[in-house]
């Protein structure tokens, strides 16, 4: 069950790395976060510990319901459909994510903890989206994927108290929200959300 869900996470992240339409990207993100939420539920069911349930609930509420709503709303308002020119094209992005996953699984092939391997793959893909895309909204989605990787790490590594765990998830959400608000400001001031137009500040 958990292996199948981890596979869904990996496949969705490969899919997201090459897609241009922001709606499809958001769809992939919803799938991924739902899979993470279900993993946390399953772990909670198996071990009977409350904090897994809390994490699952928080992930599903914030990342499956609230964040996609906000992103879809802003996509409609800002009238952006797709990423026009990619800094790294779709083909190369697929190859990069593929190598990233291979590196993550190859380096840690002695460890039996699949969560960590998947988490590292998600970090690589998230950072790739943040670096190789021009639209600010895609960069924000990249950050959210990175955040999902952190949640996987949290699930597998330690038991933290409920307040601390909630704090980490809540601050991730707040940061994404702030990015969303800033995207609106950027759109108002620059008339686009292409980060190409960021060229005023140089040495």
């Amino acid at each position, binding site marked *: 069950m958990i292996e199948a869900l981890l596979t869904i996470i990996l496949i969705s992240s490969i899919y997201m790395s090459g897609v241009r339409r922001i709606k499809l990207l958001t769809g992939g993100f919803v799938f991924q976060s739902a899979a993470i939420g279900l993993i946390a539920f399953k772990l909670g069911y198996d071990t009977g510990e409350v904090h897994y349930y809390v994490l699952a609930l928080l992930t599903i509420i914030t990342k499956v319901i609230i964040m996609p709503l906000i992103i879809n709303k802003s996509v409609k308002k800002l009238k952006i459909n797709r990423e026009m020119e990619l800094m790294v094209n779709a083909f190369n992005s697929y190859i990069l994510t593929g190598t990233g996953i291979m590196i993550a699984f190859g380096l840690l092939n002695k460890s039996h903890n699949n969560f960590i391997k998947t988490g590292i793959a998600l970090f690589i893909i998230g950072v790739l989206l943040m670096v190789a895309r021009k639209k600010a909204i895609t960069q924000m989605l990249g*950050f959210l994927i990175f955040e999902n990787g952190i949640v996987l790490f949290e699930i597998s590594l330690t038991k933290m108290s409920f307040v601390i765990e909630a704090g980490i998830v809540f601050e991730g959400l707040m940061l994404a929200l702030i990015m969303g608000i800033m995207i609106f400001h950027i759109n108002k001031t620059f008339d686009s959300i292409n980060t190409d137009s960021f060229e005023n500040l140089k040495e």
Partner: protein
Amino acid sequence: MYIVVLGILFLIMTMTPLISKNIKISGLVTILGSISVLGIVLKIITLLYDGGALNYFNEFFYIDSLSILQLLIIASINVIVSIYSRKYIENEIDEKVISNRRGKFYYFLFNFFVFFLMFIALTNNIVAMWIGLEGTTLTTAFLIGFNVNKNSLESAWKYIIICSIGIGIGLIGILIFVNAYTNQDANQILKWSHLVKNPNIQNIYAIKIAFTLIFVGIGTKAGLAPMHTWLPDAHSESPSPVSAMMSGVLLNLALYVILRFYLIIKHVPGLENTKWLFIIFGCASLVISSFSILRQTNYKRLLAFSSVENIGIIALGLGVGSKIAVFGALLHSLVHAFGKSLLFLTAGNILSAYKTKRIDKINALIKTMPINAVFLILGMLVITGAPPFPAFFSEYYIIVGTVETGNYIITALYSFCLLLVFAGFLKVFIKIVFNNEAGEKYVKIEEDKENTLPLALCFISIIVMSLFMNSYLSSMINNAVSIICD
């Protein structure tokens, strides 16, 4: 008891801008609140005069001599900056640069920012320290983009992207770090005071990876080169009081969090080489910033690069690790906080009078704004380490430390970079203050007298610091040094 009072004070300070409609009330409450916070911190200092530590709430809050130094910096700079902010925000509203509502938003964010800073310095839980650092990212993102123009939004976006990746890497490091201590009590595992007393680590290799990730991740927030690229933009585009607060306090505090992790693993056999992380990153910051200082055309960017340089000096001192060098590093973090605030606030005054950040547009400041010109020169002498001021002693102690441990190449590199910085600063500030363009008449600007009280307070604190060096202050720093070195 003290923690509860501090919590209530911050609750009042953050809620007032949301409730009251009058901007003046928010400003006054912020000033009064910051003064009471300083009072409480001074009271705690007297409790900890002989060393030792205080615990509150089941060891969630833990105060020792090291955190006392950080608390002192935060509380005193907070007082100075809130006094400055009142006039600054009123001016901006009068000139219709910002609306009344945005002014209140400023106070809300600013107080929240200070709350997170205090939280980092007070807490004992290592993940809570991370939460505090992330909180400072949340609050300062809007403060940097406060003027909502092209430059400030660009720098704020850069800041968010770089620092969120950095701090995410830091969290990964912390999670791996905690995991390397597996079979221990789950209630105790996140407490710093517990970890530092129980160095029985399961997996040395994991700890090595974890500490490197923590150093690089949180070092991004501390502005160590080569992760400093967000810093010059963010510090030069944010409102001057915020730049003062960020470069004086926030950078220090991020380094303090790294130091806490370093203290845990310092005595573990097999991990002695971690001190080279501090030394190498410190030297890289020194070299990169000192060469950048020489070719700046914007005086706020110049000050921002100087912050990178000073953080490099502090990191180098901590890495060298002999008692005198650590003493110098801690003293330098104290002096740098006051000196850099003095310079940034003076720069803010000049900016609001001249409306330009370019060095070549400002001439003969001694005739147009004599009071600010004097403070500018004094601040420059403090920050570059000219003899009567305490920065001279702190930088000298670090040189002595490097010679004592036999790292002669580092001594040479360090002294060379300090010389370069001194030359760069002298060139720019002598030009700004004394340069007379032929055929131009310089008239005194009326705004010169405004907002000089916080500058005077900064300078008086530096003087007080150098007078009390031998008695009170040095015993305080010595207690902190004994935590780091023993």
